[in-house]
């Protein structure tokens, strides 16, 4: 099967072609803007989706070395995300499906992030656990099988990726904050400053990072860099507080569910200290790390999951709508 995947849930416009479980092309808008327009990538660009979608689709089809007429179906993200952004992608996808006379399937963005773990891997068995951790989400999922997901717990306030970004701002570092903190942290001592780790010893799966952010804020109010305590030390200690919470709950989830295969997904899943800590603390488990290019928003995961859905006989009636809000399930 050849499936075209379209993703416009938030900042990134992306189009991909998947054939028989293999990604033939995976184009994201920020690349196109860099190479074709030479301009600055806007951070927030809902209406940019409109401008980019056509060019990106042509490029994705060309790079896949296929003709538009051989596409069997279209997969498109319909939520969660920003309403205007989602609507652009969904309307474009519907128009294309009608024009080509092919089927369409709507895709949940979060489910696609989780299932992206299966891409290029045939050694993953259900059930598995997935920590979905990005700027907008911090959730732990139990994946019993395709289409059977249980949300084990999530953040009460800020997402982990947001804690990284806002922490970086408080520390006076650049944007995006995650990579900046990671960069400083490799030269710092992560045990030097004691930051709070919310819920770390609780028997429930939940996260909270807003208190940690506030704690950094008050710490920095009176911070003077010395040889004994550098900004790198503070960054390393702050990062380690976030990672400790994430890993502790992954550990708890393996205990509570007796599931021994764990994975991570989302932008924060790129962080190498998180990967190291998981390797160290869950060394007796089967650990799956997704390819870095599938961690941040992309359409490969949409076309890939779309093909799986079509193979299961799923398709969506053309009158489907967008679902901007997350409602504790992946429908």
């Amino acid at each position, binding site marked *: 099967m050849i499936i075209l995947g379209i993703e416009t849930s*938030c900042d990134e416009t992306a189009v991909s072609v998947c054939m028989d479980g293999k990604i033939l092309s995976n184009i994201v808008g920020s690349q196109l803007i860099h190479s074709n327009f030479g301009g600055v990538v*806007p*951070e*927030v*660009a*809902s*209406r*940019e989706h409109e401008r980019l979608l056509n060019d990106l689709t042509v490029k994705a089809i060309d790079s896949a070395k296929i003709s538009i007429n051989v596409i069997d179906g279209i997969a498109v993200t319909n939520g*969660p*995300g*920003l*309403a*205007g*952004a989602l609507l652009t992608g969904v309307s474009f996808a519907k128009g294309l499906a009608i024009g080509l006379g092919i089927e369409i399937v709507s895709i949940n963005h979060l489910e696609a992030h989780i299932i992206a773990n299966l891409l290029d891997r045939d050694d993953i068995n259900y059930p598995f656990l997935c920590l979905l951790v*990005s*700027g*907008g989400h911090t959730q732990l999922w139990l994946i019993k099988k395709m289409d059977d997901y249980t949300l084990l717990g*999530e*953040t*009460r*306030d*800020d*997402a982990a*990726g*947001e804690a990284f*970004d*806002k922490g970086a*701002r*408080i520390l006076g570092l650049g944007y995006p904050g995650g990579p900046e903190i990671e960069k400083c942290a490799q030269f710092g001592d992560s045990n030097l400053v004691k930051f709070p780790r919310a819920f770390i010893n609780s028997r429930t799966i939940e996260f909270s990072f*807003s208190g940690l*952010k*506030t*704690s950094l*804020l*008050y710490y920095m*109010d*009176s911070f003077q860099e010395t040889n004994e305590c550098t900004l790198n030390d503070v960054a390393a200690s702050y990062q380690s507080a976030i990672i400790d919470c994430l890993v502790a709950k992954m550990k708890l989830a393996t205990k509570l569910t007796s599931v021994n295969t764990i994975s991570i997904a989302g932008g924060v899943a790129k962080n190498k200290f998180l990967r190291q800590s998981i390797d160290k603390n869950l060394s007796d488990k089967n650990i799956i790390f997704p390819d870095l290019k599938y961690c941040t928003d992309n359409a490969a995961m949409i076309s890939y999951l779309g093909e799986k859905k079509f193979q299961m006989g799923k398709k969506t009636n053309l009158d489907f709508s967008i679902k*901007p*809000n997350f409602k504790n399930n992946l429908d």
Partner: protein
Amino acid sequence: MEIECNSVEETQKFAFEFSKNIEMGSIISLNGDLGAGKTTFAQGFARGMGIKQHVGSPTFKLVSEYHGENMKLFHVDCYRLSGINDFLNMGGENLLLSESGVCLFEWASIIEGVLPINTIIIDFIRFKDNSNKRLIKISGTD
């Protein structure tokens, strides 16, 4: 109006009560630096509207929509926007004209120029010597 809150719970309780007097179509601007209590206020406010879902920070999602007992709540965060153009690019004008609910804007100073004249403005001030204390100042209401 000014009120002093000495804990997260006090801020939430105040926001809970405050939400009871807010009319459909109201726009509320929450101003204050990182960690000043804007999202905490939004959490209490949402509870007061009968929203049971977790209310998290909308920084990355830009807009979170919730269904209260009588009306919707749009929790918006302008933190990542570089100005009014970005706001309009994300379809923000629909939020300002929404007749189905109330809008809470974090970091609204970034889009000050397009906020309506009857916007309720709430400033959050934190104190360096007391991490629990917040001063909340409300203007733009009768």
